[in-house]
């Protein structure tokens, strides 16, 4: 039952009608795609390329701007640091000067107080010596008067007077001691 028509079919034949329809079909596809389909995608792809290139340029500009800002900021930071260092050095110098001044002033005041106190003590001592000298003189005069008056009458009285004088002297010395 093998088909007998095999010999009638030549698969290597090229029928003219098929060839013509094949060429026309291809021209339809080529013409249709060239005119209707491909211009749209070519335009979209060109626009995309332009958009990407524009985006790259924009990002480059932004990058440059950021770099400039960073440099500016760094310069300012360095400036501020220098300024702060200068201020710190100045403060250090000021502090030393102030301390020195205060120390000198304190020393002066201390010296003044000491000298005043010394003068005061000196004056007091001098006045005390003067007072003592006067008192001793008075006492001596009093004692002498008493000695003279009593001698004329009674030796026993002279002795009593001397004793009394010495007692007085002692009492006075005690009073002076207590007053000190």
């Amino acid at each position, binding site marked *: 039952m093998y088909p007998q028509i095999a010999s009638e079919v030549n698969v290597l034949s090229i029928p003219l009608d098929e*060839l013509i329809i094949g060429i026309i079909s291809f021209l339809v596809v080529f013409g249709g*795609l060239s005119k209707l389909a491909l211009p749209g995608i070519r*335009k979209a792809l060109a626009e995309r390329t332009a958009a990407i290139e524009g985006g790259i340029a924009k990002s480059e500009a932004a990058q440059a701007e950021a770099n400039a800002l960073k440099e500016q900021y760094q310069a300012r930071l360095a400036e501020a640091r220098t300024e702060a260092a200068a201020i710190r050095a100045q403060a250090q110098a000021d502090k030393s000067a102030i301390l020195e001044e205060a120390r000198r002033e304190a020393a002066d005041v201390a010296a003044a107080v000491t000298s005043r106190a010394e003068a005061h003590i000196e004056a007091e001592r001098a006045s005390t010596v003067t007072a003592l000298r006067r008192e001793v003189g008075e006492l001596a005069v009093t004692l002498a008067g008493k000695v003279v008056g009593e001698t004329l009458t009674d030796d026993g009285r002279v002795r009593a007077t001397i004793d009394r004088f010495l007692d007085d002297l002692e009492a006075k010395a005690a009073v002076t001691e207590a007053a000190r």
Partner: protein
Amino acid sequence: MGAEQILADGCHLNSGCGFPAPGVEVFDYATLWRFHLLGIDFLITKPLILLMIVAVVVVGFFTLAFRNAKVVPRGLQNIAEYGYLFVRDGIARDTIGKAGDKFVPLLFSLFFFIWVLNFLGIVPFAQFAPGARLAIPVAFAIMVYLLWVPLGVIKQGAGGFFKAMTMPPDVPKAMYGLLIPLEVVSNFIVRPFTHSVRLFANMFAGHLLLVTFSVATWYLFSPSLIGILGSTASFIVAIILTLFEVLIQALQAYVFTLLAAVYINDALHAH
């Protein structure tokens, strides 16, 4: 009478019927419509109808996808654009360089028209790649031949082009007596022949293989152990071959287009 008819008659293993091995007759389709134009007898068959349908579908699909092409692609444009960039960057620019951009419409048409035509080989009801009819690949190869040969004469001058195509550099002068005739035959006569036959033979063989294993699946399908085993094996092979065909179909469309680009490059630049 084709294999389909034989099988429809209930020809199976053990039914007193030999294996109806498919032959070249499966490439012969009945004339569906016939007309005369300019003294040529046009016999319209299924492969030609498929060819015309695919032409319209390819143009329609890409027009729909690219008509409102956006900078940011979406939907159909995504896939179609991938195809466009594949042809532009992978074939035109890779082979021809920047000058290849002018030939992208031609290469794009060749690639997608041939690919979709080939794909019909495994589409149910179509089940035939029109490229398996020799006249179809020949039609495409003629178009490419009629482009690159005149293009070479225009770009390099008739003498320069002929010299570039037939006299390879760095060859002893004495060899040219042998080389020139060989190169003429190889580049101007055999080239369009191999260009078309490569596509035709691949589609032809693929179709014959699929038909053979499909017929075997049906023929062996009978109430016996050997019949069931043979039928199942044939069916599995037919499925594997179908998947294999998907690869071959795309590959042959690519090869045909790539060769067209190589020929155009020969015309543009002496090598």
